[in-house]
């Protein structure tokens, strides 16, 4: 059972609008692969080309090494979980799950056995005779999965399947989906705009923006070594410091960003920098050390503008003395507790980061609207 999916210079245009730029990609058999990107970036379009609902304007899709260009939807070895699930409301749970088997001419007894087995897998044994309208949101979700798995697809395509569920259920279903994927060994191609989902479940993630894949990597690499400004801002949070490269030594870059001290961070090996280049330094909120106003070991000064208690940590918005705002997390473990009493809104503070926790990427991205990342010293 080869569930390899190969995109070969696949592009999609709707009239003048290019929804997917030419894209090549290889998804391994048995992989949990996610496409992550903001709404409207072309994720569903890409999935529809794999499932066969859309014919690429250019390029081709292959599954298990077999070109799918001439294979219609109903003959592809894929199954889709729709964003709205699209269960058949006029049929019982059994009939929903058995639909794909009935189509394949499998006899009643075998169909029922398979359906029972799948109901077991999704932990819903015994609800086969219920009408689907009587199921809760989470149960419908599982039935949709069972229905898709019934046809023994080589590739399961999931289009934001958890977006309609509440937070607790969503987190629970993440674990469950991952477990089902492991058990079945089917290639899962998962689409989401929720980075939490993509990072927790996937073996690899492709981050998309405006119809273009920005980076393909495992979740940890994606978080620690984003390749582009978009990825740095979209996956997790980042504080941006645009500036000019002052010095490069080994893997470390020194950046002049108009702040009293030079900023240092490690460079991405794949994008070399030379002194004088425009570049941006990224510091994640959890990389900041925040201290009281008197702590002179910390190089930067600022004033606390707002604080948001998030349970495990406290998010501070700090206005730097030189202009610009950064977001910093203060962990709430007992050892560090107490510091926030000195960090009330309006009080001055000091802060610094360790260069090993900062990343420098070439180029200065201006005017990108992205609420997830904060542009610091935009005036510099």
């Amino acid at each position, binding site marked *: 059972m080869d569930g390899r999916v190969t995109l070969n210079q696949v592009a999609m245009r709707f009239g003048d609008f290019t929804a997917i730029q030419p894209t090549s990609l290889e998804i391994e058999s048995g992989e949990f692969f996610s496409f992550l990107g903001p709404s409207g970036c072309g994720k569903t379009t890409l999935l529809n080309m794999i499932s066969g609902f859309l014919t690429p304007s250019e390029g081709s899709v292959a599954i298990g090494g077999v070109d799918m260009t001439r294979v219609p939807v*109903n*003959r592809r070895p894929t*199954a889709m979980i729709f964003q*709205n699930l699209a269960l*058949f409301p006029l049929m019982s749970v059994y009939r929903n799950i058995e*639909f*794909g088997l009935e*189509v394949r001419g499998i006899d009643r007894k075998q169909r029922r056995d398979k359906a029972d087995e799948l109901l077991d897998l999704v932990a819903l044994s015994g609800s086969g005779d219920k009408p689907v309208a009587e199921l809760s949101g989470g149960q419908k979700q599982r039935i949709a999965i069972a229905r898709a798995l019934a046809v023994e697809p080589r590739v399961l395509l999931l289009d934001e399947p958890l977006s309609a569920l509440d937070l607790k259920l969503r987190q629970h279903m993440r674990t469950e989906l991952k477990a089902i994927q492991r058990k079945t060994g089917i290639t899962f191609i998962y689409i989401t705009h929720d980075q939490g989902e993509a990072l927790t479940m996937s073996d690899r993630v492709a981050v998309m923006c405006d119809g273009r894949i920005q980076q393909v990597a495992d979740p940890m690499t994606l978080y620690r070594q984003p390749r582009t400004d978009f990825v740095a801002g979209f996956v997790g949070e980042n504080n941006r410091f645009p500036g000019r490269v002052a010095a490069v030594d080994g893997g470390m870059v020194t950046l002049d960003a108009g702040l009293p001290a030079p900023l240092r961070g490690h460079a991405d090996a794949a994008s070399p920098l030379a002194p004088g280049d425009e570049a941006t330094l990224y510091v994640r909120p959890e990389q900041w050390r925040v201290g009281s106003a008197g702590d002179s070991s910390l190089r930067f000064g600022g004033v606390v503008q707002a604080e948001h208690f998030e349970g495990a940590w406290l998010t501070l918005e700090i206005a730097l003395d030189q202009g610009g705002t950064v977001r910093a997390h203060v962990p709430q473990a007992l050892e560090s507790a107490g510091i926030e009493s000195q960090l009330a809104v309006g009080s001055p503070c000091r802060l610094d980061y360790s260069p090993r926790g900062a990343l420098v990427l070439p180029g200065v991205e201006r005017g990108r609207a992205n609420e997830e990342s904060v542009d610091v010293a935009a005036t510099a």
Partner: protein
Amino acid sequence: MWRQLRNRFGLPLTMAIVSLMGIWLIVMVLLPQWQMIDYSFHPSLLPAERGGAKDVWSLTNYATFFHNEIHLAIFFKTIWSSVLVTALTLIVSYPLAYYLAKVATPGQAALCLLLLIVPFWINEILRTFAWYIIFAFRGPLNELLFALGLIDRPIRFLNGDTGVLVGMVYAYILFMVFPLYNAIESLDTNQIRAARDLGAGWGRTHRRIVIPHAKPGIATGCIMTFMLAAGSYAVPALLGSPGSRWFTQIIYNWFFEGGDWNQGAAYAFLLLVLCIVFVTAIMRIFKVGLGDIAK
């Protein structure tokens, strides 16, 4: 409903609306029907004899019908032909409605609907006459078929039932297309895609997903088309031959040529009963309630 109306319009206005509706129902619908039923159970009498000794309830008008083999034959033929018209209209309309609801872009759908509706701005009789011309022995259709080499001598379309069937399908297609379109349009397109994705071909997708969903629309369309067909006068009168007379023509004859209103009323009542039976049967077959149809 009373409460909803009262909350919205206040008591005096609600009373006015409801009583107007009541009056309309009684005067325009119930009384004439009652009058007709009453007529049908009385013998046809001269004005002077009305209310006299001969003016008694009787079933003679109905007996006439059941003893007249020709009329019985025409009655059943009307039923059968109307069923045929309904089935043909359904077969023609379903792909059209599906195309309009799920395949066409909004622009194409609008154009297509316009093309469907424009002919209906013309009076039914004139539209039917158009077919009369098309079907004529030396008319354009025969010319066309001849030119294409499909026939070597003209066909008499207006001789048998062909003309009537085609004319009626054409005359009533909108009454089938619209309910179907509404029903199919309300189906979540992802249902169709899900069925396809699970391996169903187009035939099965329609059989298992689209048609079950569209059932109330199909029932509504069938009921309307059947009633219009069974009650049609103009189409069989214009496009039919003496051999393809419609039951409505017999009723017409009783009223306006035979001058026997009582007999005509009995025949008309039978047609009404037939339609009610048909509606009930269709609702049973499609397992839909009145509420589904009214939608």
